[in-house]
């Protein structure tokens, strides 16, 4: 494999990893606060739709992104209402939100645009364009490092950089701020937080709001960064993969980066090398297609071992029975 190909694969890795990463960090905030969130898929999907729809209507990708975030946060709020206020089952609530997003997006799209559950294609201005970092072209001739800078590091949309920035930021918020301390505590021992005089529900809603925001970014990136519009079910199961990555990462931000890059990389590889001809026989495309998933299982079984989730995860906080 030559450098150009490697760079291409890594470039593709980055693009495929970012939506996973944003969703994974969203899940991280939510689950660190004790709320299991299998509705990541739905939040991303609804954000993808609204960001594309509003970006199309206003011609501004930024307004689109805000709309996407808002929509995703509304789903977060419903999740909070069900699982925090009414102490409902968090899993069911998440499943319901996925269904809701899947149905609502296409339905509204059809009512608004009559393009069969799609938004019209976005023109420039309605999309995030790729940013060329300073000197990208000047430095390109430098061997090895030049192309790496110009191809891999430069030339992504702003949300990619935001996504990567979110990793240290998440780490910093969790480990270095008061909010982070309380958030980690509420996912482990809500009664400790409560007796320390801090509102458990407040913290959990805040965590869900952040999760909504991050899923909103992920959806906006899909529809207005990577693509130029919304297509039905365009998240294509990425929310579930993000959830797997989260467990893989043992609910830690830096590990999450690693896990998402790994998933992205495996997918990038699988997309590029279909039908590997081994001489005697050809590896069928289906094997390559399933390879990321097979490898995930292998890695999980071989190297990662037991992942211990936040202790209070999944249970509503009840004081009086």
């Amino acid at each position, binding site marked *: 494999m030559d450098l150009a190909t490697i760079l291409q694969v890594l470039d593709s890795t980055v693009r495929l990893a970012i939506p996973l990463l944003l969703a994974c960090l969203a899940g991280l905030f939510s689950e660190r606060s004790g709320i299991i969130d299998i509705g990541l898929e739905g939040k991303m999907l609804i954000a993808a739709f609204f960001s594309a729809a509003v970006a199309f209507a206003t011609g501004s990708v930024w307004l689109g992104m805000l709309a996407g975030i808002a929509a995703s946060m509304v789903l977060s709020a419903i999740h909070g209402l069900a699982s925090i206020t009414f102490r409902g089952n968090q899993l069911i609530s998440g499943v319901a939100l996925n269904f809701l997003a899947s149905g609502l997006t296409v339905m509204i799209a059809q009512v608004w645009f009559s393009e069969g559950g799609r938004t019209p294609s976005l023109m420039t201005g309605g999309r995030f364009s790729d940013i060329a970092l300073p000197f990208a072209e000047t430095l390109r001739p430098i061997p090895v490092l030049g192309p790496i800078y110009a191809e891999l590091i430069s030339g992504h949309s702003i949300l990619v950089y935001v996504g990567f920035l979110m990793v240290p930021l998440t780490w910093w918020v969790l480990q270095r701020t*008061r*909010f982070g301390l309380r958030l*980690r*505590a509420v996912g482990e021992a809500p009664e400790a937080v*409560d007796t320390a*005089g801090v509102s458990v529900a407040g913290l959990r809603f805040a965590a869900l709001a952040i999760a909504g925001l991050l899923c909103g970014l992920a959806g906006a990136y899909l529809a207005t960064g990577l693509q130029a519009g919304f297509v039905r079910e365009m998240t294509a199961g990425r929310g579930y993969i993000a959830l797997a990555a989260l467990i893989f990462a043992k609910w830690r931000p830096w590990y999450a980066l690693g896990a998402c890059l790994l998933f992205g990389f495996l997918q990038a590889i699988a997309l590029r090398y279909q039908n590997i001809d081994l001489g005697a026989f050809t590896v069928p495309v289906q094997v390559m297609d399933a390879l990321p998933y097979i490898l995930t299982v292998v890695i999980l079984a071989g190297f990662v071992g037991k992942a211990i989730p936040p202790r209070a995860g999944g249970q509503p906080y009840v004081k009086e029975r």
Partner: protein
Amino acid sequence: MTDTPAIELKGISKAFGPVQANKDISIRVMPGTIHGIIGENGAGKSTLMSILYGFYKADAGEIFIGGRKTEIPDSQAAIRAGIGMVFQHFKLVQNFTVLENVILGAEEGGLLRPSLSKARGVLKKLADDYELRVDPNALIEDLSVGHQQRVEILKALYREADILILDEPTGVLTPAEADHLFRILRGLRDEGKTIVLITHKLREIMEITDTVSVMRRGEMVATVETARSNPSELAELMVGRKVLLRVDKAPAQPGRPILEIENLSHTDASGVQRLRDVSLTVRAGEIVGIAGVSGNGQSELLEVLGGMATATGSVRLNGHEIPLTGRKADGKTRRAQGIAHVPEDRQHEGLIMRFHAWENIAFGYHHDDRYGRGTLMDNVALRRDAEDKMKRYDVRPPDPWLEARNFSGGNQQKIVLAREIERDPEVLLVGQPTRGVDIGAIEFIHQEIVRLRDKGKAILLVSVELDEILGLADRIAVMFDGRIMGERLPSETDQRELGLLMAGVTEAPAGSGLDAVEESLRDKERREAARHD
């Protein structure tokens, strides 16, 4: 001292559904005193204090702090009013450091760093002032219960509490740790702080409190000055009848050896050796008590014998070797061989809290033929059996359809005991049989254990209550750091000597035994801290 009470509660009532936990309760506690509250399980002590701390909201009643009427809708308000509480079940974040737990909810501004460095300073000062030493960087899950409790006290003091409530603080402590705690409490009192102490142990009430209130069935039945009362009067007030305060038993008639343990060693999942060449024999018709500070291998000894953990060495039951590793080294096989096990932790091991009482009555014995022969279980037989046993053991309420979690701790323990003892096992392993159980129930539980002994069975008893060991055991082995430090007869030893052995000291140095325990505990801590680095 002034005449204004530090705490005054007027007409507090609280119901949980149909259960009236507190009924029109009034109480006054003067500043600079230690006030005890006693009462049977479920009398409403914890509820009352939780109301004072804003954890629950009272249905009716008023609260006055320092003479001023105060609304306490949540814990934040209680903290602001200068109240701190150490709950029966600690409210600590297990995978946080001590420091993080202390500042949680009392941080200074948005960033942690300044709060942490401030807290570090304050903690150091508190440690010096009140002998409250804990490593601020240690993780809670690595600390002993005694130290976790210190963290809870530190949390309250860090928030500058003037009123400190402790709910059954000594239930999980060794005598030395309890002594240490009392020294701290006295120190705090002398500083002018007000302390409310909930306990089941009359000895502690007599030892440390200035005044004491007795609760029964949600009501306050009396408040007296400790000095003018005595244990049997208090016990009678609590239970509403006369109770026996010591174990009544005939001398043991030990027979042939039943359980012979030789060179038993066990290393846990994190690689720490918990048992080191333990050898011990238990004979028919005797109770062997294992004394020791918790965490010195007693729990592991019971786990290995009960089939919950694997080990090396040899164990013979009635002369036959039993497997210590492999598929046959599980609880099911042990039970079939005649080893019954009352685990230390009834809520997480001995019972399934969400199972009905009748389902729990078969737990571990559910393969037994008496509960049906084929694949299907004979639930009718099970329920009949449960009803029977619950009646015999006076489990209240005697309703087999109640879920285990809906029984009080003492009654939960009775269910476990009924299940294990009524099997007529060759060997009974029993851990902390009366932890958190009230006086009335303790009396009953002790009687049942003695009754089994008198049927010629071998009993291995583990307890951190020296009183219990001294009163119940026929022979005492002391464990320290995974070893048996020595064996004594109860008639020929005392708390002081046992305390020394528990601290790993075999011959008596000068000075009090308890100090030596303290010293050695600190030693052990340092070693453990080193291991965690």
